[in-house]
């Protein structure tokens, strides 16, 4: 119960920080909508729905990257991560809370982005929405872990995409697959498996990336 209370307190703090600073969500929203507008005009008329589905996933991954890049900024600016690491709570609670907050920001951006996508390109299938939701879990758990690894280095802006994008490739494969095939069950199961596996790995390993 203490673990959940710690996660709740830390996630609430992240949401409160975003509410005050408004650094992350507005930039994610502007970015993802701008990307769809650019794609709308860049894609030649008569392009296939499959190409548009691919673009949706490109936009989601890079929008998430924008949010992940901001995720540990409050901790970095005042080195608050040191104080959180010293606190007696399980250190994985820091990761889980940050993942939940990032998931909330990404989800909020997608609540606007997906209808815009449907408007500019083609309608959304239930399997695309399910794929996005499952991929978001993987993006946020893995991305937060990688973000914590990168934040303590000098080359953090470079390191985050370098580490995150290769790990996000399976999510893109699963997401695009779920969006374009007639029977998406296999791809959704793959995304679910990725989420469980990587969430467990990140949960177990987080302790080792936050101590020098």
């Amino acid at each position: 119960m203490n673990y959940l209370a710690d996660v709740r307190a830390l996630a609430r703090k992240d949401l409160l920080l975003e509410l005050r600073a408004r650094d992350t969500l507005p930039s994610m929203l502007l970015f993802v909508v701008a990307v769809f507008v650019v794609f709308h005009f860049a894609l030649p008329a008569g392009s296939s729905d499959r190409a548009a589905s691919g673009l949706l996933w490109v936009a989601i991954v890079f929008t998430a990257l924008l949010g992940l890049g901001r995720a540990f900024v409050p901790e970095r600016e005042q080195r608050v991560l040191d104080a959180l690491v010293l606190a007696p709570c399980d250190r994985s609670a820091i990761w889980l809370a940050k993942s939940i907050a990032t998931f909330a920001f990404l989800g909020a951006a997608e609540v606007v982005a997906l209808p815009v996508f449907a408007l500019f390109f083609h309608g959304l299938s239930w399997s695309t929405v399910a794929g996005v939701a499952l991929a978001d879990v993987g993006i946020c758990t893995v991305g937060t872990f990688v973000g914590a690894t990168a934040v303590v280095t000098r080359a953090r802006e470079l390191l985050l995409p370098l580490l995150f994008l290769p790990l996000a490739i399976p999510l893109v494969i699963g997401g695009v697959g779920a969006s374009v095939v007639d029977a998406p069950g296999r791809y959704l199961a793959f995304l679910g498996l990725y989420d469980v596996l990587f969430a467990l790995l990140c949960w177990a390993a987080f302790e080792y990336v936050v101590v020098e």
Partner: protein
Amino acid sequence: MIEARNVGRLFGDKRVLRGVDLDVPRGGFALVTGPNGAGKTTLLRMCAGLALPSEGELRVDVTRERIGFLAHDPLVYRELTALENLDLYGKLYRVLERKERVGMLLERFGLWEARHERVGAYSRGMTQRLALCRVLLHDPALLVLDEPYTALDAQGADLLDEQLDELHGDRTFLVSTHDPERVERFATTRLVLA
């Protein structure tokens, strides 16, 4: 409480600490001095459990919930108020009667009136006072203080003196400072890093 034998630390190829021996008994007050770059902060971070030694043996005989660490940075969120910051740490440290303890500390360090202001609007001295509140919030057994007088005005420094007066002997201290005269009277162990 702290036992260091031949402790050293490397960051890549760069050595920042070599062959440190230190014994601080329970209730002791260790004063660490030395020029900039001598490794004071690194040693304190290792004793607080934030970094591991590259060589040697370091034993700190206290669990991390009983450590209070004051760093160069205040380790508080600028977008939160003083009250929100201390409430968060109070929850994480499972401080009993959290609200009363937070209120008492804010009042003692002269921040009660400014408790609802965001820390970003605080002066450096006020932020340092808040950092001291954070360190004392969970009544730690080991206090690791890195340059605790930094940015404090005369009144703030006197407040800190009062706290040290009250707590020394009862708690264990590891303090680094460029102004050793200020805390010399408490020191039971001295370590000069070159």
